């Protein structure tokens, strides 16, 4: 991934920004996040299978509480929201403005999601595979998404709410640290991680389809 990013950054520096050339970048990012999601799924299922029935019932009862550390990030929760755009920017020659902005929005949200998990993922246990390095993979993915954002920004304004979120990047993670370290916490972590990874995957896929006509995605 690092090599790819280096190469792509060189290409980016030499060539004027064109969102269509991001197709390769997108494919890589999507592939990465897919892998992470599978990883998260496996971790979660391993953990669930290791639970006993008594604990499982307990966990079910407290499930409804808001425990994901990334809940502060407002993410689109349905297709419509994901695909829609609400802000108009100046038109760009390559694609429709709505598409362009929607892509940026998705990319930024994905970036924040990944970023929010960089630190907490270190406490995630490997489960059956003892040496799974989740944190570095997240870092690489973050770098890739950043590249994509930079490649597609092309003068567009940054999101207005991005600055505010820099203050509390990890949300309520630290608050929940005080809670009892137990199966519950691990369960929550794993469930949230799995969900967030799937979100990023979906967002990136949609963004990719929006930007690259050769990916055979059209609205």
């Amino acid at each position: 991934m690092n090599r790819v990013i280096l190469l792509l950054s060189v290409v980016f520096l030499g060539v004027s920004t064109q969102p269509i050339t991001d197709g390769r970048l997108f494919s890589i990012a999507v592939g990465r996040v897919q892998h992470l999601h599978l990883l998260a799924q496996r971790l979660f299922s391993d953990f669930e299978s290791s639970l006993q029935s008594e604990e499982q019932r307990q966990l079910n009862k407290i499930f409804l509480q808001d425990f994901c550390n990334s809940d502060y990030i407002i993410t689109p929760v349905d297709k419509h929201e994901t695909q829609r755009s609400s802000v108009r920017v100046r038109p760009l020659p390559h694609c429709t403005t709505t598409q362009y902005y929607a892509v940026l929005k998705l990319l930024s949200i994905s970036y924040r999601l990944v970023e929010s998990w960089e630190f907490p993922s270190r406490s995630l246990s490997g489960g059956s595979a003892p040496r799974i390095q989740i944190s570095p993979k997240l870092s690489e993915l973050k770098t890739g998404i950043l590249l994509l954002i930079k490649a597609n920004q092309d003068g567009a304004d940054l999101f207005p709410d991005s600055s505010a979120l820099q203050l509390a990047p990890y949300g309520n993670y630290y608050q929940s640290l005080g809670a009892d370290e137990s199966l519950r916490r691990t369960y929550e972590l794993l469930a949230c991680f799995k969900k967030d990874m799937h979100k990023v995957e979906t967002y990136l896929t949609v963004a990719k389809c929006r930007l690259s006509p050769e990916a055979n995605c059209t609205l």
Partner: protein
Amino acid sequence: MRNVFEVMLLLLLLLLPLVTAHAGGQPNSPPGKPVLTSCRSPEKETFTCWWKPGSDGGLSTKHSLFYRKESSDAVHECPDYRTAGENSCFFNKNNTAIWVNYNITVVATNSLGSAYSDPVEVDVVYIVQPNPPENVTVSVMEDKGWPFLRVSWEPPRKADTRSGWITLVYELRVKLKEEDDWETHLAGQQKMFNILSLPSGGEYQVEVRCRPDHGFWSEWSSTSKANVPHHFRRDNSTWILMTVFFAFTFLIVAWLLHLNRHNLKRCILPPVPGPKIKGFDKKLLKSGKSNEIFSALVVPDYPSTPSSNYEDLLVDYLEVYVPTERELQLEESKDPHDDRLKSDSSTSDSDSGRGSCDSHTLLVDKEAKEEARQAECGQTRTEVQRSLKDWDALTYAQIDMVGRDVPSGRVKTWPSLYSPLPRHSSGPLDQQSSLQMAKQHSLSTSSFLAQEASGESYWDVCSHGELPRPLRAKTPPHRGLRARSDADVSGAGLKRAPAGPRSLAPHTSEYVEVQRVNNKDVVLLQPVVTGCYQALPGEVYSKVKRVDSDNILLLQREAREEDGYPGAEQENTTQKASACVYAAVLVQDQMAPMVNGYVDTATMCTLTC
């Protein structure tokens, strides 16, 4: 009256169910617990949940579904009970939130109570099961004469794959109509697939299904049929036929090889020629008695008659005519060496290199040599006769003079080859003029027979001319062995008579030794000085005693050893005196060149002293 009775009957009838109901003892109970069987979303935008109701408890039961989203405590009821059918709840787009956990509960209520099902956590993302693919078309196409099926389909209508919201992977399966087992192929995300491996013609059935990247497989689509024409799988049959044919041929060849394995073995791996001596008995060798060993080696019919093989090897050959006495002498000399001879010849028979220097046959028993020498000098008549007989068979001689300076006087003959010497029982005409030739013959034969080493010993053998032998009486008619030398060896040797005495008597032989080899590769011989034989150095002249009736020049002998030689004067062919010979040689030289080795006996002097 009648009306009252009817009314009562009617009442009874009406109350009967109630009575029975009460009397039956089946009490109404609260409904049984319903069970949420599954919740599915076909396109990740809406989802439906189904439940199975429990016992209704005899009363009409009403089921209702309640759900809660993860982030709020508000309980909502199912918005749509009808769209999805009986015992179902359908959540439309507006009510569906992805990545949000739904806590769903079904409640069964009847007049007596209600029952709650176990809650179920649902995240729409993980319950996606799309509809089967649509518009599955199968077409038969041809590729280089071979038919194949091209299957194409479309994603289910509701699934939004174009925007990337949902990513589907496909799988298809195919079978012949009459078969039972399906053959599945994974098609990935593509919407078209070629089935190439069609075993035969007939009607093929194809079905396709799909699945999101994280979700459940859809149901199989409706079966699409296609008729594939019957095609002859020629390539398979051809290969099978060829394989069978070759296997058959291979088996036959292998069987033939097996039958002839001995011949093949002999051909491919020829037996290594080992040292095989005819008549050589290893056991005798172990016994350690050399006499027995060598006597065992004696082959009665040795040496064998000349065969055509030898003619091939003929390089040069000498025909030496040896007079009877000389023959005897030679035989004598040969006799002790017979064993060796035979051994040598027999060994050299099988030996690859005939008489090579490195041949082991050269390593002749020194003892035998000495023995032979002794015997030679003191051989009796009988021995001579015996040896003569053996000598009869010995008709081969050759001098293969290699340009090799032999200062010591040993003729090295290698490779010494056999050359046929025709037997001669002719008269003096065929006689070798010079003793030299006889000497050479003797030399050559001995050298040949005894190879190098034994050849050496031969030269040391004393001339039998000195020994008194009554050769005339018992000698068989002399068989002249004409030695005809194409090389001017003999001639050269004969021409030069400075060094040693030579004998002119045709039927006398004398042992000579090689003086030297001149630049023309001519071996110069001189009589052997050692042993019983004495050679007088320098030129020797003899007085002519008288001329015989046969035109034989009888010279006066000078050598003292010849004195005891009785009857020598009377013999034509048998005797040879060392001193007497020399003059004859000289005379001969003057008379005729000895290049070809033929000397006219008329001009030649035979001497008997």
